[in-house]
């Protein structure tokens, strides 16, 4: 395996959780809910996945534990913002802070233990394809899930009636309500999906990326996932492109150091955010693309009047 392939493999590993978490948040935001708690849900997913794996010895149970715990944690957000109509921004920030704290508490006894790494699933023959084979067909389950998720989210949002209803709720919740769509239920489900994805992305940290538990191991990648959704202007395929781009940038910090290239690592870690700002400037410049892509009800609470 050449050096290029090795670098690409690390890029894929770095990009996969970003893509998963961002796709989940994209669905949530498309329904009009801004959940800034991605970082918190991710870290909860990471710690629960690790603990479950250590307890049962099966990283697959770890994946399930990570996903379910992320979803349950997002349910708290849903209850506060959708049922109790709390401010979404404040609640999301609180969720992140709470998640970082709770995960540290849960993970304390497991800190420093080395865990089981999620095994690779090798596709016979396909994995023998030169260059591409080892990159795409000699990977772990979470990578394959991320690929399935890309197609599934795109298909769901733009080809199914339920996806259409979800987008309509995000565009104008009062109009959707007038059409008889259950706005609150749609948003609950979207928030749950976002939470599950963030939990799954978190599980990737503690089962694949670095198979162990350290406090704050998500290291701000939840925020990158959030930025990614805006960067992608709420389009799933752009999330994928952006995810791999941002993944490559974060890996290049390491490689740049290894090769002794004199770009400050702080600049590289700021790059995703700079790119997001640039994209925001571009899309907000064009009223039409903003209208068509941005969920117009994003962050607005819905209280039906009756």
């Amino acid at each position, binding site marked *: 395996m050449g050096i290029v392939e090795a670098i690409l493999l690390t890029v894929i590993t770095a990009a996969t959780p970003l893509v998963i978490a961002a796709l989940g948040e994209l669905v949530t935001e498309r329904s009009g809910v801004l959940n800034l708690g991605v970082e918190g849900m991710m870290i909860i997913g990471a710690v629960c996945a690790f603990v479950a794996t250590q307890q049962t010895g099966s990283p697959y149970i770890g994946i399930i534990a990570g996903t379910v715990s992320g979803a349950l944690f997002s349910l708290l957000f849903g209850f506060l913002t959708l049922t109790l109509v709390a401010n979404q921004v404040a609640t999301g920030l609180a969720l992140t802070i709470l998640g970082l704290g709770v995960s540290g508490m849960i993970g304390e006894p497991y800190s420093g233990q080395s865990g089981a790494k999620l095994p690779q699933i090798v596709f016979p023959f396909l994995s023998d394809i030169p260059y591409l084979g080892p990159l795409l067909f000699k990977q772990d389950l979470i990578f394959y899930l991320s690929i399935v998720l890309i197609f599934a989210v795109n298909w769901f949002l733009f080809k199914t*009636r339920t996806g*259409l*209803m979800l*987008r*309509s709720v995000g*565009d*104008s919740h*009062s*109009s*959707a309500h*007038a*059409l*008889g*769509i259950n706005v609150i239920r749609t948003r609950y489900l979207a928030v749950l999906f976002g939470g599950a994805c963030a939990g799954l992305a978190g599980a990737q940290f503690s089962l694949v990326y670095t198979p162990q538990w350290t406090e704050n191991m998500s290291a701000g990648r939840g925020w990158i996932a959030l930025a990614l959704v805006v960067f992608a202007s709420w389009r799933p395929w752009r999330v994928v492109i952006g995810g791999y781009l941002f993944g490559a940038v974060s890996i290049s910090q390491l490689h740049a150091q290894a090769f002794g290239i004199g770009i400050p690592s702080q600049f590289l870690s700021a790059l995703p955010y700079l790119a997001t700002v640039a994209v925001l400037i571009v899309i907000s410049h064009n009223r*039409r693309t903003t*209208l*068509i*892509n*941005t*969920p*117009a009800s994003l962050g607005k609470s819905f209280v039906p009047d*009756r």
Partner: protein
Amino acid sequence: MAVHEQAVDGSLLAVDKLTKVFGTFAACDHIDLAIKPGEIHALLGENGAGKSTLVKMLFGVLAPTSGRILWQGEPVRISSPNAARKLGIGMVFQHFSLFEALTVAENIALSMAPGISLAKISEEAATLSRSYGLPLDPKAHVADLSVGERQRIEIVRALLQNPRLIILDEPTSVLTPQEADRLFDTLAKLKAEGRSVLYISHRLEEVQRICDRATVLRHGKVTGACDPRQETPSSLARMMVGSDVAHVSAEGTSARGDVLLEARHLSAAARTPFAVSLKDVCLKVHGGEVLAIAGVAGNGQSELFDALSGEYPVADANAVQLRQKPVGTLGINARRLMGSGFVPEERHGHAAVSALPLSDNLVLARSVSDRKAFLGGGRLGIIRQDAVKRATKRICEVMDVRKSGEDPPAGSLSGGNLQKFIVGRELDRQPSVLVVNQPTWGVDAGAASRIRQALVDLAKAGSAVLVISQDLDEIFEVATEIAVINEGRLSDAYPAKDLSREKIGLLMGGMQVGKQAESLDAH
């Protein structure tokens, strides 16, 4: 009501003593209405008469407080728009319930039964829209469409359900005359197919042109049921605006003063697709006069207020004159400094910050115009709490503002009391020019009369007062001169005592204004 019982027989939809109460306010009060199969039935009334509330109950958006709805003679409970659609009721909203980010076909699909592919819906919508003369491109994004095209989507969406009754809420208020003609052709076609139409409007001309029967609402009550073709525009207008003669207050004003507020050929382009552009508006208000501007909401009143107050200055400085000085390009504070006061329409969020106490709201409005009185410390602008508290107390006493506590948040006051405060806040400065938009909208009778008295008193003291209002009772109570605004054009001003309600009703409905507009265009 025996007459009503007969009407209910054989009707497609009938409502019996339908009532909707918001708090203590009855938006709809024991409404009776019967719609026959294959008729175009008009629901006439001024803004705030309860038309939209009634229709929302029929379409399951609002739940009635009491009363019955009968569909083909059977009592039904319409609990949601879906239930209404299942019965066979289709609705075209005044403010479209469309999704801008979605395509035409997607918008239509959302209101259809599940399980039909988008491709099939596109095809059906295209066929249907062609057959009714409502061309539509299913793949277009709503954000790119004109208002008329958006309405077509709503109509096609309603028609795809194959409804027996189609409700149209003020459909022509957003259409050009050509688009309206097209709509009338479509309605005639629907009628020929045996469908019923409930046509909500305040435009007498249209109603007489296309409707078979009319039910007239005023202040939430039915004031008439008739065949509009048998009526004259003035008899319809009388039912709509009421025939009881209001006691016009004895103005008792001294001689007319100088012209203090003037608009000279004031024009302003519409800022949003739903706004109205001002077209060559000319008006003069002398000291000692109250000029009232009547008109149905959404005909340019807010735009006129914005231009006169300077919330949105206009390009031509000469178009607005305060005390004979051009101020068109100046902002609201510069105009306040010249001795004028402005009270906008929306109490909450525009005239006052609900969460802040009254004293803060006072400072926010007058921190520039009364800087010396309220702010100290030179450029630091430290608020003189004592002076502000005293002024707040004074305003509340003069205007009889009832409140809990010394200085409660604006939002905790009732609508009437907050409105008294907001008007009093400007009157406290003894402005030589006062512009008020809808001074007593949604305000109880006691507060309304207090506010009106204050406006009359200000004019008596020699100031020029301009009142924009939809309430004819109010206009006749306060005005010395009356003009009517329709589609952004202002009629000539007539002395209040020379104008009848019928004439105002006609001007409001857009009749005779055509002639007026031509004479203005000829300038």
